């Protein structure tokens, strides 16, 4: 059903993680790292055994490309705009881009939702909840 390569990658990276730190403070991390590596190996082995027995096609629950790209891009935009532009543009960017990810949404609807939330939401957090996030600012803080 599942991963082959990922199990191995999992194993490799955890080994590195586990042995990175020193003993003393590193005792628990090392122990956990080794444990995780072993578990990763067992999982990979399990899948490999199962994979060789059945010819079940590997089912990857693929993400919806448009939706996931828009969501990731939206949050990324929030970080960038929040840093360089303030809360209101950041909110607008986030909501507008991420809502475009849904297949049934249109340009106009997203625009409406985004402007509504940008005004209402950022004012709500700025004033009644008194978050120290400037609404607008130019350039890096």
């Amino acid at each position, binding site marked *: 059903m599942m991963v082959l390569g990922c199990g191995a990658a999992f194993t490799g990276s955890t080994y590195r*993680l586990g042995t990175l*730190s020193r003993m003393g*403070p590193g005792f*628990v991390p090392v122990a956990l790292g080794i444990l995780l590596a072993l*578990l990763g190996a067992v999982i990979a082995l399990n899948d490999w055994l199962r994979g060789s027995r059945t010819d079940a096609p590997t089912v990857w629950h693929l993400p919806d490309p448009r939706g996931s790209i828009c969501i990731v891009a939206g*949050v*990324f935009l929030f970080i960038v705009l929040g840093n360089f532009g303030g809360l209101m543009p950041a909110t607008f960017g986030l909501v507008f881009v991420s809502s475009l990810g849904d297949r049934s949404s249109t340009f106009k609807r997203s625009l409406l939702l985004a402007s509504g939330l940008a005004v209402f939401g950022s004012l709500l957090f700025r004033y009644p909840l008194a978050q120290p*996030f400037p609404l607008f600012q130019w350039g890096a803080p």
Partner: protein
Amino acid sequence: MIGTSLGNLWYGFGVALQPSNLMWSFFGVFIGNLVGVLPGMGVLTTISILLPLTYALSPIAAVLLLAGIFYGAQYGAAVCSILLNLPCHPSHVVTCIDAYPLTRQGKGGMALGITMMSSFVGASVGIIIMVLFSSVVVALALQFGPAEYFSLLLFGLLAGSTMSKGDPIKGVAMMVFGMLLGVVGTDVTSGVFRFTFGILDLSDGIELVALALGLFGIGEFLKSVNKMVSIQGNSPGMHVRAREMLPTLADIRVAAWPTVRGTLIGAIFGFLPGTGPTPASFISYAAEKKLSKYPERFGHGAIEGFASSEASTHSCVQVDFIPTLTLGIPGEAVMALLLSALLIKGIQPGPQFISAHPSIFWGLVASFWIGNVMLIILNIPLIGLWVRLLSLPYRYIYPSALFFICIGVWSTRSSLVLVAETLIFGIVGYVFAALEFEIAPLLLGFVLEPLVEENFRRAMIFSRGDLATFVERPISAAFLCMTVLLLAVQSIGLARLARKKISANASATLAE
């Protein structure tokens, strides 16, 4: 003892009935009920979104709000699974099996009525157990040393990760991964930075809110965008009237014993740290099916089935608060968030919690009852509204929720780096979910890691590095025994499953 408990309860009602506390409790229950109904908005997501908001509240109000969301959502999810066959919450999967057929037969109202009744009974018994037994647990907990805590934590972690749905080995792997994430930050004893990779923001550790919102917020949206089925207005569950909700005496008689049995099973699972309402509901359903004289009726609208599973869910949810508050060990991921809300307020749950903060504990207990009554009153007129809400398009829900996630995460430390952290965890969480790894154990491991490490180290110091201390102390040994037993049962089950699969495959190849 009962007298003092009653006195304390009376005091708790006094606290819970203060107008501001009552308002927050109502708000929590209402929001919880709402998100319980909405598919694609989990309890975890909601609590983590509202968690930053609670920083501004008094500790009592914060806990009442979050707890209200937790049990309010259980009711909401029941409505959703009965009327529309959508299990919005894993503990309601079994409810769907028997309650939805009743809805299709036009008896959805009756099913709702029975569910509410058995939920209420389950919750009430759970609260009574809380009142009576929390002092017993406290007395026991005062004898706990680091060795006992470590063994109990180990048991809780393994129980929580193997008993959630999906492959137990993967669950344990996720739990260990979560513990590794918990290691990130400054080591408490030596001050050494661990796994910070030179990023200064990581020296305080990974923020729980960022982790939870990434995994359960962004990850969940990535998974379900464009994949949610919108509900059409013509399913049979859309037309339920309040009058139909009154079950007949015969129905009540059928539901009575299963409710009692479900309540007991739920209470037992509530006591076990690490196990939540989901395994409780599955086990009580299975038990009811075994006990029934007519097992063939199950799956076609047997009242016993959903009465017992709902009762167990609700009693488990209430009893879950005992280990969380008296031992400081959260029973499941939701409890972990609740615990962190208390910790942020500077309140340390543990054996001293009840005596140090009686107003919070007894106020919480009293608010459970008030909240449960509110839920019943709320649910009757609001069912129509909930059902209509289900047709709210997802394209409005998730962008708005994303906004609340971003601003919520930002406000915990006034830092956009946290938002980036959240985004990364969202993607990680999505990848794990796509590979069929269960995410809840990860959060459990993350929250419990500091406790595990601290108690392990202390136990080692007391015993001068002798591992035998875990077996020599009786309470600790008992927990370890339970852990071994649990693992044995699990691996027998796994082996049996594997054998079944192999034989099925063999027969399939033979047939070809």
